[in-house]
């Protein structure tokens, strides 16, 4: 199979997963589409050294996660509003409790560094174990544990003080 065909096949197979990942983190279809394109560009750039097929989903999952968090960071820098996560806008069906929870989560996230946020997202939102998060981010389990502890400590301080 030619290079371009192989890449198209990967995009066809993994495209929905990439889009879902971006949409889950960014919660905005247009921004998720932008992030998808960035992931595709990474695929094009690294096409000669992509992992074998069974590991490709993990690879794009991590790349999409990094791309989305970088996009959130850049958007925050551009808007300088501090409310960089698109999670602050209530949806039409959101209950009061959901909006309140989201605002509390936003406040907690605003106290964290980008690295802490990514680890916290993988473990607390996506449901990965610390071992899995460590493997995905190529970190030690100890580092992941420390970042989670730091995130939670800062979040509690930020939310309750």
């Amino acid at each position, binding site marked *: 199979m030619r290079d371009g065909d192989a890449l198209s096949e990967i995009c066809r197979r993994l495209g*929905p997963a990439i889009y879902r990942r971006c949409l889950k983190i960014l919660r905005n279809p247009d921004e998720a589409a932008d992030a998808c394109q960035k992931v595709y*560009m990474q695929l094009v750039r690294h096409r000669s050294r992509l992992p074998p097929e069974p590991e490709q989903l993990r690879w794009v*999952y991590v790349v999409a996660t990094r791309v989305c968090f970088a996009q959130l960071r850049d958007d925050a820098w551009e808007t300088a509003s501090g409310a960089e996560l698109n999670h602050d806008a209530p949806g039409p069906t959101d*209950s009061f409790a959901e909006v309140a929870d989201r605002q509390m989560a936003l406040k907690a996230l605003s106290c964290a560094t980008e690295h802490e946020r990514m680890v916290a997202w993988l473990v607390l939102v996506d449901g990965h174990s610390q071992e899995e998060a460590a493997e995905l981010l190529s970190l030690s389990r100890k580092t992941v544990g420390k970042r989670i502890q730091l995130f939670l400590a800062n979040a509690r301080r930020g939310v309750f003080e």
Partner: protein
Amino acid sequence: MNAARTAQCPSDLALEEHLLDANPATARHIVGCAHCQAWERSAAEAARAFARENPRWMAKAQARSSPLRRWAPLLPIAALAAAALFILHSPSPEAPRYATKGEELTVYIGGQGAPRAASQGERVRPGEALRFQVAPGSAAFVWIASVDSTGSVSRLVPAEGTTPLAVDGAQLLPGSAVLDAVEGPERIWAVISREPVSWAVVEQALQGSPVRDPTAVHIPGARTATVLLERGAP
């Protein structure tokens, strides 16, 4: 309100892996978990949005990433051509099994005159009803779906619920589909698996598939049987 994730829920990555390659343990968990069923529904919704928008994104991404700047004015065209090629030519790693009447899937047409078994490319008319018989050989789970000329997927059997129909031996399936006045080709698919495959997996695999080319569909953990119908006025 969405159900909360439980400690037993697979991670998002594990759910994505299940969509690509059905995992029996994950499938069993989803059947009894409101959170993961909601995840599957939103996954299917996102897959539909992806199917609508993907060629445009692909074209942009490929145009942006090339190092050959002097060819830059031609790149959007090339990228669009690549995207078109990608849509039209998607080789599957494992050839699906096709069935004509009498094999794994038989489509019966009734409503006007005596019921008949459809042959490949059979012309069907508005108001006629379709019923489906499958013969998977041994105990299996079955979804029946259709794909029209635009690549839109319709779920036919079972019409409701989260799990496919359990079938043992040859069986005429409950329920029927009545044809409306839409014209054009329509492909009926039977998706047959030993372990239950979720509807989201089936829908994602069939969404956007070219109606006249059954080789473009591959569903991990399942085999397929298909019959092409030509819908039109008498």
